[in-house]
């Protein structure tokens, strides 16, 4: 269908390419614009595979992410810190804790699980116009709530009873996808702080070019792709188009948070969600790269910290378990990381080998229950975990029915 034709520019000796008018399903005006040779600017864009008209304002295609640049361990004074750029959206995150709750009194840090506190600060100079953040801004509050809730479900909060994790996020520059950038930055900083989590919590936005219209019943031949959902919106696009922010846990299709602040046809949700989740997978890959790029010594220290946290928590749980069954003496418990993807538990000679499977994997659970039952009647395991080959931590937890 696409007829490519080389032509010589009358103004110079360079050859340029454009999509010819025989591209039947594009209307004439579009073909006109795409075939214009912008001689004055620079080398003509190679539009042989993609029409110029389908590019977005900043030159991206519909499913392209903006440049993501991130760093961890950026602040020496914080327990964990990160700096993240998604295009022109720039966010700094610092994490303090997990530590004993600072605030005395009834509230804060008194619970059975880690108390995650998120604070978002919008710098006055972050937008196009200078705007001071109003105290009690509902939109900011909702963002903080979304981040808190989704982190509560992703971090292994049960490992840190009576402690507080304060996450403070600073927005230096806003250009769309703010919530997504905040979530990604918070995840990076939490990893940097050595807080065990099931998997990376990653987020991105997806929008839709046609707001109110239902999706076509089937893809027509003349669908030129202008109604496509688009990925990773900028501030300009967010103003014009309906969009949603989606966060997933790792590269799986598990949605951890979905925030929709605009109206669109319900039929569009599926495709937007699909594009968003797909974007999250790519963000996850980028986050992985950031982790690998982090200074090796620091990363290995973090890994060791993670391992220690996991094994310590495991040992404590196990000891509680044994004591609660009325044992007179605690059997020696030693936990060791045999190889990176495996955690081996030595418990009075009995070895529990934890196989690297996703959280709550049946095989793992069955194995552990079988072995523990030999010593302690009625033990059950709620979930298991290990250090994945990519350095991620998964849950370990024990208890009785």
């Amino acid at each position, binding site marked *: 269908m696409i007829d490519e034709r080389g032509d010589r520019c009358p103004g110079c000796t360079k050859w340029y390419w454009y999509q010819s008018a025989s591209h039947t399903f594009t209307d004439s005006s579009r073909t006109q614009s795409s075939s214009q040779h912008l001689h004055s600017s620079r080398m003509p864009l190679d539009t042989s595979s993609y029409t110029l008209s389908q590019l977005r304002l900043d030159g991206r295609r519909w499913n392209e992410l903006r440049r993501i640049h991130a760093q961890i361990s950026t602040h020496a004074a*914080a327990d964990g810190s990160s700096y993240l750029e998604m295009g022109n959206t720039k966010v700094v995150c*610092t994490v303090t804790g997990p530590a004993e709750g600072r605030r005395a009194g009834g509230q804060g840090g008194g619970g059975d699980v880690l108390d995650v506190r998120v604070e978002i*600060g919008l*710098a*006055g100079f*972050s937008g*196009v116009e200078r705007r001071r953040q109003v105290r009690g801004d509902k939109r900011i509050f909702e963002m903080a709530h979304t981040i808190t809730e989704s982190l509560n479900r992703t971090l292994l909060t049960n490992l840190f009873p009576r402690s507080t994790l304060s996450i403070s996020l600073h927005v230096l520059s806003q250009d769309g996808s703010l919530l997504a950038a905040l979530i990604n930055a918070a995840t990076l900083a939490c990893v940097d702080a050595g807080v065990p989590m099931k998997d990376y919590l990653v987020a991105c936005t997806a929008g839709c070019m046609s707001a109110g219209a239902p999706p076509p019943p089937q893809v027509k031949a003349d669908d030129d792709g202008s109604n496509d959902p688009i990925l990773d919106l900028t501030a300009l696009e967010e103003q014009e188009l309906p969009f949603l922010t989606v966060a997933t846990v790792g590269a799986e299709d598990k949605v951890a948070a979905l925030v929709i602040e605009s109206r669109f046809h319900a039929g569009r949700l599926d495709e937007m969600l699909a594009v968003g989740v797909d974007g999250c997978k790519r963000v996850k890959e980028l986050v992985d790269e950031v982790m690998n790029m982090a200074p090796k010594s620091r990363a290995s220290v973090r890994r060791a910290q993670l391992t220690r946290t996991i094994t310590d928590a495991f040992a404590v749980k196990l000891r509680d378990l044994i004591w609660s069954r009325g044992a007179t003496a605690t059997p020696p418990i030693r936990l060791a990381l045999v190889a990176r993807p495996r955690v081996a538990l030595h418990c009075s000679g009995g070895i529990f080998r934890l196989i690297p499977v996703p959280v709550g994997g049946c095989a793992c659970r069955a194995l552990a229950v079988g072995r523990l039952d030999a010593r302690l009647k009625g033990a059950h395991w709620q979930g298991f975990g290990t250090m994945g080959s990519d350095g991620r931590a998964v849950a370990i937890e024990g208890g009785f029915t």
Partner: protein
Amino acid sequence: MPTQASINAQAQVFLSPAELSYLHSSLTLNPAIRPDGRSSTQFRPLVAEADILSNANGSARVCFADGTEAVAGVKIEVEKTQDAWKAADAALDVDDGEEYEEGRGSRRKADLSEDVWVETHVEIPGYREDDALPVFLAGILTEALLASGELKQRLFINRRFHWKLYVDILLLSQPLSYPLPLLSLTTHLALLSARVPLLISQGEEDPLFSDDWAAATLLYPRTGAVAGDKPPITLLVVTIGENIIFDPSKDELAVAESVVAVSLDEPSISPAARSGKQKANPQSRRNLRLLSLRTIDPPSHLTSSGVPTSLGMETGADDFGTAATSSEAIVAREGLDRGEVWSPPRGGLKRNMVVKIIKECTSEEGVGQEVIRALAAVG
């Protein structure tokens, strides 16, 4: 005019009287022996970068050695002057735009420009924006910015419009030591990199600006007719005994006898001086101008004093014993020689120390000039 301000909240001291005494005595030596081996005028290494944000007119990030870090952003917006027709303009005979240019005009600009055109906000994590510390810090910084009057004159566009300058400073870390010098140096860098769109309208017309950002002018121009002056810096100086110590660390603040915030700036070269000997070498170092000097309540006031063995252990330990004993102990402590055990300083700053501080800060080979030179290299 010295103003007292509390610094206590963030600078809790967890040192015993014996440790404080040790620190104090080594810092009173001549030359002072500092815990990290620096000389008394030496600064800790810092990381600084300027012009980091595209959304702000000017921006900077400074990271101190103790891990505290700040980001400052400068936003400059056109604003309509509220009381443009105030009493001052009765004295003005406005018929063309020429009067603002040189000589006579600059005096009028000074008459017409107002302090409210510069707004500074400091954000510190864990503090409300109306808490004492951020408000006080913003106050010191604004005062230094406005002191010379040159900045607000530069914000003057015409009698109906002016630039409004917003300086927003974010402290990204907890305030481990008193954050004033950090915030001030960050602001200095951000203002140095701040640009204003080129004005293409003239005189009393509605202001119109060039779309070309490349043509934008620096708020503090480095070359040309009005070059010279630099944004102010505020340094924290500590006196211990007869010693003056710059860039105090947390431990040094804990034993400081007095803490002084000194605001300085480099004044622009007057046209007369420029035509004279200064012209030969415009890069020559100049004396800095002292803008303000404030004493700050040092955290050492909150430390508990040591009890010498001569007073007896039971008096020290049994502070809440019989009233007679404890008051006796207090009376006995009052008469003690300072050198024997640690006792919190009673405050006050000797006049000769003030002179010494000013001289150290403002002289052309002094610390202030050194800091300004170092920051100029960042941009």
